[in-house]
């Protein structure tokens, strides 16, 4: 079964996404903060990482992207950002290279079918 890691500080969003992806035959690991996520990545090797970029007051999710990319096993793992805000709404906080490090950006509320399709497509890559 394909496994993905979902990182979000909103427990409802974790639950919603988990339900949808499980329905589509995808196993979901969840983490509500950066420390939990990094700890999971020490032991598991998810095929896709889904990440909320604005978990606290700042775009610390983007810092996490950089941190994940430093791990040798996850240099090429697709990362899908899911956020309440569009990239243009946080443009001044996004480093120039940030968008090159991720493979997609979905805006909440996410269309569930689109989410499932996108994750499936990234899993196949």
């Amino acid at each position, binding site marked *: 079964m394909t496994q993905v890691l979902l990182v979000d500080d909103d427990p*409802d969003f974790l639950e919603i996404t988990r*339900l949808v992806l499980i329905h589509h035959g995808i196993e979901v690991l969840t983490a509500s903060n950066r420390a939990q996520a990094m700890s999971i990545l020490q032991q598991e090797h998810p095929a896709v990482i889904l990440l909320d970029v604005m978990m606290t007051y700042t775009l610390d999710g983007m810092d996490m992207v950089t941190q994940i990319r430093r791990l040798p096993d996850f240099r090429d793992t697709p990362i899908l950002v899911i956020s309440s805000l569009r990239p243009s709404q946080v443009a001044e906080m996004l480093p120039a290279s940030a968008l090159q490090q991720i493979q997609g950006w979905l805006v909440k509320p996410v269309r569930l079918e689109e989410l499932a399709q996108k994750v499936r497509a990234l899993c196949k890559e």
Partner: protein
Amino acid sequence: MTPDEGPQDTVSRVPSKTTASLRSPIEVEVAERLAWLIRLRWLAVVGTLIAIAVADQVVPGTLPLGALVATTGFIAAYNLGLHFIARRLAGIPDDARRARYARRLIHFQVVLDLLCLTVLLHFAGGIDTPFWAFYVLHIIIASILLSPLSAYAYVGVAAVFYGTMVLLEFFGIIPHTHLNGMACPGHYAQWTVLLSTGSAFLATLFFSAWMATSISMRLRARDLELVRLNVELEHRADELGELNRRLQEIDEARKRFVRVAAHELRAPVAAIQSYARLILSGYVPAERQEEIITRVEQRALELLDRINDLLILSRIQEHVEKREQVNAAEVLEKVVELMRPAAEEKRLRLHVEVEPDLPPIFADREQIQHIWMNLISNAIKYTPAGGYIEVTLSHRPTSIIGSVRDSGIGIAPEDQEKIFQEFYRTEEAKQMAPHGTGLGLSIVKQIVEGLGGRIWVSSAPGKGSKFTFVLPRSDVPAPAEPAERDATDESRPPWPGG
């Protein structure tokens, strides 16, 4: 008179503190004019030698050529000395010091020049020669480059030199050089000549000094005013720059707030919409649907709370008009009454200690209620069942002090400042109570600071927290500083055994 007092007089007349340190451009020019004076003197030396040669042709054998050439040579010699001194002066980096030395040197030159001019005039015919007009040049130079007092002093010096020379000749104490064809023999020894030439000499010199100083003083004042305006403009430009920087900071903070607020308002809406879509798309088995709908309701309530808190936050400044004499103890009593059931539900011991005869504060009652409600509800929310909450209210000479202490999860040192920022919630808080507005403490902080008080927290993870706020009393005049932080209170551990 001291040579240095001139141009500073002008400076001190300008009624501005900042101008005390200003120097008129003329002062800077004094140093530059030194070289110009030396060049002018070389011309004078050459001109004098030519005049002597011409005069010797026109009236051969009349003039004492040796004495005239020797005096001119003396002028050339000291001009050479001045040339070297001026070059050394130019190397002084400090403008003020260079100008001071240059001014002294100009005084020295003017005296020497007047003396040498008198000697030359004596050998060139004394009172008979019309070249006494050259004194005027020196007076004009002194008027432009030095102070008015110096100019009039040099009128006096010139009068003494010239007067002494003509009187000594008049009384036959020194010989008079007679210019053949220019004056009748004995002309110099007539009282009428002495009086008329002397009057013309004094009047010309005095009026030259008066006209030159009045014009130069006006120009100097204008120069100085320009310098002062320039400095003021630079100062204003700096002020505007600083204001602009602060406005940019405020704008940046506003943008960040709107961004975070948008994120925080969208999150519950997104969850509600996604849950609805989840049920409608058949992702949720029937037995879980009630649970999911309950979550939807909770998220809707959370959104309402967040909007309410945002409205409170936006209206904090508007509450100034609603301020009245408020007894913080009465407000506390009502809040505790409201909160006690929630505390009892979690089996928390809620202890309240209010000092008797508490002085009033000048505030909006509703805002004081917000302070107590937010602090006590946080204590209830973040204290595990069976814990303890202690609320105290006391007073100091100029302030009242309220505190809410709990045996809850505590706050890590690195989070203790951030918790007062809008929407900030610690990881531990999120785990203990997943949904919160993240606005309660920023509302409390803004209310307390809006009332001229302060709030702070002392806490350690797992050892509880103590929030303390200080508000100024309304029955005594406010101290110079905003309500003092109670340092002794800070030094106590946040919790017994903590």
